[in-house]
């Protein structure tokens, strides 16, 4: 009997968020010649509508969990959590780029279409149950991101950021893919649940599995910017257009951690002992290199780039603990991290000015006097990045280090906490410059906040605050979803 290739209704529903995003992105490219000159803002509005539709679709798909398309995709709480997270980041990315694109006189249609495509790839990564689907989702996301990083193509910094991101990103993909090939060779399958079964059986060659796991850790390590594979991150976040940096520092990283968790918690779980030491070292290196290199930075975007390496280190601590509590902590931290980073970058977008001339820390001087509201919001984000109580960053760090302690990673937890103390120094410097110095030329000439940027600042600030005061709702969702593959 021939196989039936018609997708069932559940298949279509479980794939609906990606379908909506890709359809909207394609529609934009078709509408581009008609509307890009007359109504540049239309594409932003359309993309927000598409994101909201995809968000609703992701929630609807969660009502009917299970496998889709011959076990290639899986919709469970974990997939839904990350779909909602990356789509939310996408919405903020659009809000924060209205004014920026207008200021730089850039095309809007391609930009928003690329953001939609990137997010669709990230949703696909979150919901994959197959290494090949993970690879395709990762590439959809990455290829769109390469273009976005160099979006203002006459700007030398954009070119360089795109080139570095592209070369190191594809290099990493090569490693990931070689790992996939070896796993396929060992187990005869690329489906995560089948790999789990095959590796749990006795007589598996541990050496081969370790090589495959190491190759995949290298590939994923690049994507999450974990040391020693972090060198591209500061360059790319500094060189790319500020709203793109905000997007790149959050959404692809969240999706990459989602597949990191899914692969290593489900497929490689039976051989966990072979990869735990590697993650331990990677977590420590990322925290230390990120925080210490950030100390001496003068460019805000570059400093946030190094700080994102350090934050990847904290999340890797949660991964090293290899427990459901660790998975929950990583998921919660990614949400908190996304909100505070988007917010901090939104202030940079606001400050930057045409051609991004004002992105030094000294340019923030006197912001507290000139625009107290913006300064107050940045303060919330900075306090959250430090991990001060009443912010999402505090609970994120708290859960991560608790997970580490419960898995007897005492040294890693202690070194991580010491690292957080180092980080406080360079974050607090922002506050000192902002409140205690006299206004700089940049803050004197600053325009008032535009509605789009205001949204991209206020909503993440509210989110950061809610995660810090009432973490229960997000945390419970994450905890219910953390038992992946069970």
């Amino acid at each position, binding site marked *: 009997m021939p196989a039936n290739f018609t997708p069932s209704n559940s298949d279509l529903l479980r794939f609906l968020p990606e379908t909506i995003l890709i359809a909207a992105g394609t529609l934009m490219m078709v509408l581009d010649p008609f509307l890009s000159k007359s109504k540049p803002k239309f594409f932003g509005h359309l993309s927000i509508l598409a994101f909201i539709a995809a968000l609703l679709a992701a929630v609807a798909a969660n009502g009917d969990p299970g496998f889709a398309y011959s076990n290639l995709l899986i919709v469970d709480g974990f997939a839904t959590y990350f779909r909602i997270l990356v789509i939310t980041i996408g919405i903020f990315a659009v809000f924060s780029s209205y004014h920026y694109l207008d200021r730089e006189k850039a095309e809007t249609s391609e930009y928003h279409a690329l953001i939609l495509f990137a997010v669709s790839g990230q949703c696909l990564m979150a919901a994959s149950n197959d290494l*090949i689907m993970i*690879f*395709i989702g990762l*590439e959809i996301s990455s*290829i769109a991101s*390469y*273009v976005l990083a*160099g979006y203002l*193509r*006459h700007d*030398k*910094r954009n*070119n*360089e*950021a*795109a*080139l*570095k991101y*592209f*070369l190191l990103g*594809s*290099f990493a*993909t*090569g490693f990931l*893919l*070689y790992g*996939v*090939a*070896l796993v*396929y*060779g060992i187990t*005869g*399958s*690329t489906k995560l649940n089948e790999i789990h079964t095959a590796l749990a059986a006795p007589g598996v060659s541990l050496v081969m599995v370790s090589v495959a796991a190491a190759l995949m850790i290298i590939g994923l390590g690049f994507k999450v910017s974990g040391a020693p594979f972090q060198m591209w991150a*500061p*360059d790319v976040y*500094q*060189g790319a257009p500020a709203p793109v940096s905000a997007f790149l520092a959050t959404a692809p990283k969240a999706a990459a951690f989602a597949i990191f968790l899914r692969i290593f918690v489900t497929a490689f779980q039976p051989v966990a002992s072979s990869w735990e030491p590697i993650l331990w070292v990677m977590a420590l290196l990322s925290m230390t290199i990120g925080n210490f290199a950030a100390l*001496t*930075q*003068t*460019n805000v975007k*570059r400093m946030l780039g190094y700080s994102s390496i350090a934050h990847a280190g904290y999340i890797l601590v949660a991964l090293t603990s290899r427990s459901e509590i660790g998975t929950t902590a990583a998921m919660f931290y990614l949400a908190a991290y996304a909100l505070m980073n988007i917010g901090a970058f939104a202030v940079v977008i606001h400050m930057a000015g045409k051609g991004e001339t004002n992105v030094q820390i000294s340019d923030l001087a006197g912001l507290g006097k000139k625009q107290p509201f913006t300064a107050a919001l940045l303060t919330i984000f900075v306090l959250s990045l430090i991990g001060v109580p009443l912010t999402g960053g505090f609970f994120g760090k708290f859960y991560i280090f608790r997970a580490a302690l419960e898995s007897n990673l005492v040294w890693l937890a202690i070194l991580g906490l010491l690292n957080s103390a180092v980080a406080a120094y360079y974050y607090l410097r922002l506050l000192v410059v902002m409140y205690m110095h006299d206004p700089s030329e940049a803050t004197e000439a600053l325009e008032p906040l535009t509605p789009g940027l205001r949204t991209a600042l206020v909503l993440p600030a509210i989110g950061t605050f809610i995660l810090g005061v009432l973490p229960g709702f997000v945390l419970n969702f994450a905890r219910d979803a953390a038992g992946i593959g069970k």
Partner: protein
Amino acid sequence: MDPAQVLETLKHGAVPTAWYLALSAVLFVIGVAGFILRRNIITVFMCIELMLNAVNLSFIAFAHEHKQVAGHLFTFFVMVVAAAEAAVGLAIILTVFRNRSTLNIDEIESLKN
């Protein structure tokens, strides 16, 4: 493996899977080494393509070993993605060359503190 036995299998047209895997590993390592050592962006990009093709060879060898068609399908996916990546990558390299008139990777280093 015994040389006489190897000769026997080769006569029947069947190269052992391990040979393909070894070749694939060698190609992959050449790609990685080229990526790290070469200074011309186009050459660096070619090295990445070499890495992807080394992986393709592995997929095919494993598919033959497992007597499955899935491995062949994966190589198609990899080829499609590599083509998309090449299109975007060459466009990026072109814009870099237009703005800087150089393809030497060491001269592209304006982003620093």
